[in-house]
């Protein structure tokens, strides 16, 4: 019975002759989803990303210990039944710290994305829509920021304000927006001259309304792919800042900072700095695989 229903749904979605716009749209989405699920690496990435998100959100429930509780009698312990991933130089449970560290890392990523995507989108759409001098000035500013290596600009910026999670987030935003602005500008330029924008303008809509309601939605698709692919580089930059002592500060269980404090044990208790390293690697790889798969589906040209 349920098999038959599923079959009917599939037929409805995959028909060559959809009878409504809604059916066509859902059919297209279903085909994209089918292409995406066929890519096993990308599906693996998606699963890992979801698991990581859940694990760090549920860290207070899942973590066997308080990540800050020290036990100097049991420092640098090997992985065991009591401490699955061992303990660090202050006897804190590494597994618990990794779980709570996920909150810090993924939290930074989310914060950066929430700021950088609208910022880049706004600058790009305004530059592309109004053109002329404004466009030239904005694009020149974009070029200046693009001509710094990201990490180094972020380092200098954080050093000037005050090392910490908040300034690290702002520093990454400062270095990450230019590609988004370029992307949004390119999309805007292709839409700007179209007849339907001219038609909207004839109805007396304001520029603000046109950009917000008619141009921004056109840029969202390519922006999503870009954001997903950028996630891993945001993770790496955040971790690098932490490692260099400019991001999250100890005793915060941020993964990069954990490695920085534990790096002197690499030769003897190698697992202590290596485990947070693996965590960064897994998170970053998962986002890369997911982004790669999304791009293949949404933008087959760039394969």
């Amino acid at each position, binding site marked *: 019975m349920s098999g038959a229903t599923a079959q009917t749904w599939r037929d409805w979605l995959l028909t060559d002759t959809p009878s409504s716009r809604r059916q066509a749209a859902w059919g297209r989405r279903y085909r994209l989803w089918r292409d995406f699920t066929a890519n096993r*690496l990308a599906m693996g990435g998606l699963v890992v990303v979801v698991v990581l998100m859940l694990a760090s959100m549920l860290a207070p429930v899942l973590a066997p210990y308080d990540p800050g509780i020290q036990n100097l009698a049991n420092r640098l312990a090997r992985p065991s039944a009591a401490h699955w991933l061992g303990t660090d130089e202050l006897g804190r449970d590494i597994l618990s710290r990794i779980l709570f560290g996920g909150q810090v890392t993924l939290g930074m990523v989310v914060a950066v994305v929430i700021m950088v995507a609208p910022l880049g989108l706004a600058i790009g759409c305004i530059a592309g829509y109004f053109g002329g001098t404004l466009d030239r000035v904005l694009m020149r500013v974009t070029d200046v920021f693009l001509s*710094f*290596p990201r*990490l*180094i600009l972020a380092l200098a910026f954080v050093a000037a304000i005050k090392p910490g999670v908040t300034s690290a987030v702002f520093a990454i935003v400062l270095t990450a927006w230019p590609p988004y602005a370029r992307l949004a500008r390119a999309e805007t330029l292709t839409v700007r001259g179209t007849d339907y924008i001219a038609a909207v303008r004839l109805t007396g809509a304001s520029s603000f309304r046109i950009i917000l309601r008619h141009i921004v939605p056109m840029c969202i698709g390519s922006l999503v792919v870009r954001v997903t692919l950028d996630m891993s580089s945001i993770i*790496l930059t955040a971790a690098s800042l932490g490692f*260099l002592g400019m991001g999250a500060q100890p005793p915060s269980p941020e993964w990069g900072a954990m490695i920085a404090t534990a790096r002197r044990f*690499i030769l003897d208790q190698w697992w202590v700095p290596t485990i947070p390293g693996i965590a960064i690697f897994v998170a970053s790889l998962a986002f890369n695989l997911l982004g790669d798969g999304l791009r293949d589906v949404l933008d087959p040209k760039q394969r």
Partner: protein
Amino acid sequence: MATPRLKALAATAASVPITLFGLVLVTFLIGRVMPIDPVLAIVGDRAPADVVAQVRLELGLDEPLYVQFWIYLGKLVQGDLGRSVMTSHTVVDDIIRFFPATMELATAAIIIAALLGIPIGVLAAVKQGSRIDHVIRVITLAGHSLPIFVLALISLLVFYATLEIAPGPGRQNILFDDMVPTITGLLTVDSLIAGEWEVFWDALAHLVQPAGVLAYFSMAYLARMTRAFMLDTLKGEFIITARAKGLSPARVIWKHAFGNIAVRLITILALAYAGLLEGAVITETVFSWPGLGQYLTISLLNADMNAVLGATLVVGVTYLAFNLLADLLYRLLDPRVR
């Protein structure tokens, strides 16, 4: 034919001073938002008030921001980036001392990356969809996902501590310190010029590990770009022509397909080289490599702002120069835009 090309070149050339100006402005502004008082950093926080005021006046810190920027620019043009509080040398002297080590590291890394990454990319494209393609895809994706300091630490653990085949951190064995005169600042080159083979081998041995770690990330990037370019080119009709001529597969792939992407790859290579500067900051920190990156991070931790801004500016300018070089090479070498 020549006019549009010249116009494009002129546009590129014209954009350079503007970008450069922006670069200087950004570093200047970063330096001015910092909460650390530059006067106190110089005279110490127990100095009497009149001394503080005196120094403040000398540094032009009472002037409005745009006048300060003008003073900063004027000094910059004379090659004055201020004095490092930490080393007590001028920042320019420090940069001249540390920059060659970074260039040596980055150059070694780009050579390794190109020698590995480009053939891997070609192989992946030729065998598209095969098992080897998937393996290469995972290897290169790992290169985009692994933090460089983790790879560096693991490399130290494996090659230095466990297998004992690599020398430890640093640029050379302390026994060889100052044995060869500094000419280019590149230790491998200077030791060759001096004919000191022992120093050369030691320097090379110290170079291989950090360069290899640094190279992995560029290798991943180069391999991915090469694969994408090759896939695109292999679809071309002229590839069928080349095969129809009865050429060997090797010749079809290397002479015809690769010949078509070589110029684009040179551009990518220049961009990758610029990108290495970023990785060098972390690699140098882990391997105690006495280059600009280590100078930058130590200055950061000591809030030595003149040094930080000077190093940032130099890295920015180098980055810009390589981007420009990539653009110029492309225009000069490709017969289609000639």
